[in-house]
């Protein structure tokens, strides 16, 4: 059985673990870098990207996750996790700088502008209920990045080899299709 870690420094960890287990894999909350060795894949969850980014730096996760990625082990970033994986975040200092995307934070506005909607995602058979919470957008992608989904012409999901990102929160629904897609990336 595939074992998938969820970075548990801050944010919606339990929801991802629930979805991983619904999809038939084992989910583990990851608080220490030593835990990465036992994992097949890693999810960086939604939360506050500034908070998660600072704690990642404090506890050595920046280098550890870069090494994890070098082994081509899949990493999935949702919302804040997407921001953490990006190479460029406007004028701000980027975190892991692994994925060739340029991201705009809080791109839809404040919480009152947060929303849910149905989206067609490349690789999924049916429309997916996507929950956007103070969500980021992907403004530009490198040539080796595959765009998986757009909302009103703007990029909200993408894949680059073993890296997957979504602006929205598949863990807040009861549909495990996106998590299943991620687990299939480990096969």
């Amino acid at each position, binding site marked *: 059985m595939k074992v998938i870690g969820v970075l548990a420094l801050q944010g919606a960890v339990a929801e991802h673990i629930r979805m991983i287990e619904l999809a038939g894999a084992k989910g583990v909350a990851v608080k220490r870098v030593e835990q990465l060795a036992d994992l097949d894949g890693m999810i960086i969850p939604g*939360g506050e990207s500034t908070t998660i980014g600072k704690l990642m730096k404090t506890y050595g996760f920046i280098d550890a996750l870069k090494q994890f990625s070098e082994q081509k082990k899949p990493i999935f970033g949702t919302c804040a996790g997407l921001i953490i994986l990006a190479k460029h975040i406007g004028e701000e200092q980027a975190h892991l700088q692994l994925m060739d995307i340029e991201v705009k934070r809080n791109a839809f506005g404040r919480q009152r502008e947060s929303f849910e909607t149905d989206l067609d995602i490349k690789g999924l058979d049916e429309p997916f209920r996507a929950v956007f919470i103070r969500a980021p957008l992907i403004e530009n992608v490198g040539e080796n990045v595959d765009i998986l989904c757009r909302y009103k012409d703007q990029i909200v999901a993408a894949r680059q080899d073993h890296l997957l990102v979504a602006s929205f929160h598949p863990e807040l629904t009861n549909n495990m299709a996106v998590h299943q897609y991620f687990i299939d990336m480990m096969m």
Partner: protein
Amino acid sequence: METGTTVVKRGMAEMQKGGVIMDVMNAEQAKIAEAAGACAVMALERIPSEIRASGGVARTADPTIIEEVVKSVSVPVMAKARIGHFVEAKMLESLGVDYIDESEVLTPADEVYHIDKTQFTVPFVCGAKDIGEALRRIGEGAAMMRTKGEPGTGNIVEAVRHMRIINSQIRHIQNMHKDELMTYAKNLGAPYDLVLNIHENGKLPVVNFAAGGVATPADAALMMYLGADGVFVGSGIFKSDNPEKFAKAIVEATTHYDDYKLIADVSRNLGAPMKGIEISDLNAAERMQDRGI
């Protein structure tokens, strides 16, 4: 495309989990909080211990302060409205606040009714001392709960009491026979469907943070150990000798609440925490937790 749905409101609180929400009174403090790793800030005119000291009627903050804080940080900004004060809450929503705390820390505007929180796109957090209060607030539309504790005292005892009561009542409801739930709901004064929801799921349908009296990193970790999803720190940080260091220590202790060596390390040389108040020294009128039940 739908805004302000239950999923979107409750989901916003899910994203705050494992984090620390800090009270701030201006842009400068908000930046210190954000730099220390706060997952959100609560913008107010006076922190609870000052409200306690100065007396009089405590109202929602001046819009200038809220706007100043909103502009200065990228983390979500919360603000407090008086219990039952629909208009203060609507003002905060119009200012772009990300979460409204209908709070007993301010002087209640209504001693009988709370705000109908379903009439807002922005989500609400409310305080509770027990499961009846929590379920009434959720029934009114609150998307996040917190313990009431006893704000501005720097004394954790009431937050501990409230977290233990709520979690013990959740375990009790989960173990009850289904045919006992209606009478239990009646006695609690709680909506039946929410009692049934707890019976089936064994947890509150919304996130529950600790608040009211957190004064040290160890206090924050204790509340996480007792089952809190995250922590509000009010007076503790900016009443301490070194707010920057103190705020960072609370954030680390909340994330690693079961790593006692780490908590000991971050607790070193923090300077004096706020002095604190013994709860039995408060008279009935000074107990904020008894407001709006």
